[in-house]
């Protein structure tokens, strides 16, 4: 039944070691979003894809990249994770202008 699936639910990575988080959707939505949520804070939009068009938020660090190979999948790549990148990463989808559907998130720990 899950419509936005994030894998893995928990990810531990080493300081500086590249890590990739994945998101898939069964809703056929044309927009996919990545948010970062640190403890006790609100989700912060990193970037989104409108179809194949990538849209970066102005304050998203270069360390964060994304790929969307097809409608169903979107990946978040963190090139050199630092301790400050430990957070919950949330993927969401929508048809433009419609309600968002969020995944359950991937909790990233950097050691």
């Amino acid at each position, binding site marked *: 039944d899950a419509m936005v699936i994030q894998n893995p639910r928990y990810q531990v990575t080493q300081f500086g070691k590249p890590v990739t988080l994945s998101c898939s959707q069964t809703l056929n939505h044309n*927009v996919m979003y990545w948010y970062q949520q640190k403890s006790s*804070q609100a989700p912060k*939009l990193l970037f989104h894809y409108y179809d194949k068009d990538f849209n970066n938020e102005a304050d998203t660090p270069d360390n964060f990249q994304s790929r969307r190979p097809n409608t169903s999948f979107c990946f978040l790549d963190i090139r050199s994770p630092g301790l400050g990148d430990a957070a919950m990463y949330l993927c969401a989808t929508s048809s433009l202008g419609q*309600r*968002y559907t969020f995944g359950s*998130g991937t909790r990233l720990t950097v050691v």
Partner: protein
Amino acid sequence: LAKTTQPISMDSYEGQEVNITCSHNNIATNDYITWYQQFPSQGPRFIIQGYKTKVTNEVASLFIPADRKSSTLSLPRVSLSDTAVYYCLVVGMDSSYKLIFGSGTRLLVRP
């Protein structure tokens, strides 16, 4: 992008009606108001949205006065499982329909 202001936290008891008010003084003509609920370690979940007057669904009501500078989310007869963070967001074409989260209201429902 219209900034939203809502109480940081609220307490209630089971069975009571809870009203969370959000102010959005610089809402644009084409913007609409949407509310999301987030439980710990989960992604936000859509509750309700509206443009003006009153909207009701199976879980909540949303009241929007004529000037649209504020809105009130009403949760009837809350239960312990309604303990969560509630986010008020203003969304519109000018911001490409992006959800930009403010700090939210942390609702605690007590027995």
